[in-house]
């Protein structure tokens, strides 16, 4: 269970109520009614950091040195999850049946708290409101040479939520266990200590040329899409990040 810290509201979320979007806060997670009226906790831009996992990068070492990549990435590899992909807790992930396997992408989500331009790693945390859970759903990627619009930008391919938990409640963002459950079976575990570029480095790097706004979310990094992370119509997928929250979504055919 997530804890309460004095009088400060720790949880920030959005819900749909009679077709209106309502912003809410809560002191404790049990106060929040979790159902499919939940929306992503913010409506900002969502930027992903690809290939930001030590084991994944290791597994691609050879490919990184061959054509078309030629050499390993010199800077964090970024992509955009467009607004049509964003869904909240309990909304359905809709998967096509003719595009090959579809994978869950468990990741910590970094929620920006105020406008960030050219932020130093040392004070990057000052620009972070808190953290959320992201499921960066993707088709299989055979190459990282061209932008992954087809693999990553299908409708409903980015569940986010259920809430933003205030950063003061998360003492070690670079050491958080991330567990994935499919149909209530524990299938995968990773940890934010497996990120190549830390939370602070990511915020600093992106803000060096892209101004981040309050409510923008950064997907810190997803692990290798191994078969355990494949999701199919009828499944229920849940991602649990230590001290942040549990994001659950059903999967249905597109």
């Amino acid at each position, binding site marked *: 269970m997530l804890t309460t810290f004095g009088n400060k509201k720790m949880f920030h979320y959005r819900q749909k109520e009679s077709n209106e979007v309502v912003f809410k806060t809560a002191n404790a997670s049990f106060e929040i009614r979790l159902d499919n009226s939940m929306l992503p906790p913010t409506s900002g831009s969502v930027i992903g950091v690809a*290939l930001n996992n030590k084991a994944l990068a290791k597994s691609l070492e050879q490919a990184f040195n061959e054509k078309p990549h030629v*050499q390993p990435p010199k800077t964090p*590899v970024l992509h955009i999850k467009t607004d*049509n992909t964003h869904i909240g807790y309990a909304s359905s992930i809709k998967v096509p049946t003719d595009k090959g396997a579809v994978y869950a992408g468990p990741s910590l989500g970094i929620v920006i708290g105020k406008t960030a*331009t050219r932020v130093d790693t040392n004070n990057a945390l000052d620009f972070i409101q808190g953290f959320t859970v992201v499921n960066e759903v993707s088709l299989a990627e055979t190459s990282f*040479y*061209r932008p992954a619009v087809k693999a990553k930008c299908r409708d409903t391919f980015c569940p986010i939520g259920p809430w933003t938990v205030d950063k003061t409640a998360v003492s070690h963002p670079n050491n958080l266990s991330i567990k994935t459950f499919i149909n209530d079976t524990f299938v995968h575990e990773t940890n934010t200590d497996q990120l190549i570029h830390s939370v602070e480095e990511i915020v600093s790097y992106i803000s060096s040329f*892209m101004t981040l706004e309050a409510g923008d979310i950064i997907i810190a990094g997803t692990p290798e899409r191994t078969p355990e992370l494949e999701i199919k119509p009828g499944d229920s997928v849940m991602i649990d990040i230590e001290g942040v929250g549990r994001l659950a979504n059903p999967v249905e055919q597109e």
Partner: protein
Amino acid sequence: MKSARILFNNKTLDVTINEQDQVVTQQGDVLADGSFTWLPPCEGKMFVLAINYADHAAELSFKAPEEPLVFLKNKNSLIGHDQNTYRPDNVDYMHYECELVVVIGKEAKNVSKEDAMNYVGGYTVGNDYAIRDYLENYYRPNLRVKSRDTCTPIGPYLVDAKDIKDPHNLMLRTYINGELKQEGNTKDLVFNIPHLIAYLSDIMTLTPGDMIFTGTPEGLADVKPGDVVTTEVEGVGVLKNTIISETEYLKTI
């Protein structure tokens, strides 16, 4: 009809442009040039086509692709007409790209090529700057090349779709300090507008305000601080932009 968005007395206003190319508020007031700031005329997803003109593909020594090569930009890069774009200090090659921008007018999912033009709300001019020094072979062209603050001027205004008789026969021209540098015509698009809308709406739902930057023809050149870059699409608009140094830019933020 032409519509735009401006900042006037610290307020964001949706305005129209009259026959004399003057800005008119919803109350009917004509605003003097220089009394307001141009903002991007639309907001939404930003799709950009790479190598979508055969001549430009040759210029970059690429074969034209077999399917549209689409990348995304983020809204941080958008600025309006008559604003400044900064060139990073110590880079070798920063170039403009004059493009016709198609703006989506109504929600589109799984639209056929035959129906696609019904989903176009209007057109505007885009300048898709790139810093080639930062190219890497991962999700190329990567965001550091293309999605930089101030690197996507757009505007000045949106022209209604019905006012552009043939969007596939419009001249594109770029001038640096008044000298013609780039010239092309939308008739040479590798993938035309219906093809692009059908292609994208097969992947995802497009919504009003989404922008498709349709690509740029040959004629790229380096731009330096002090240069005034004018990108023009026949019948759609003339978009002016000034290059400043990173040092100057840092004084403004």
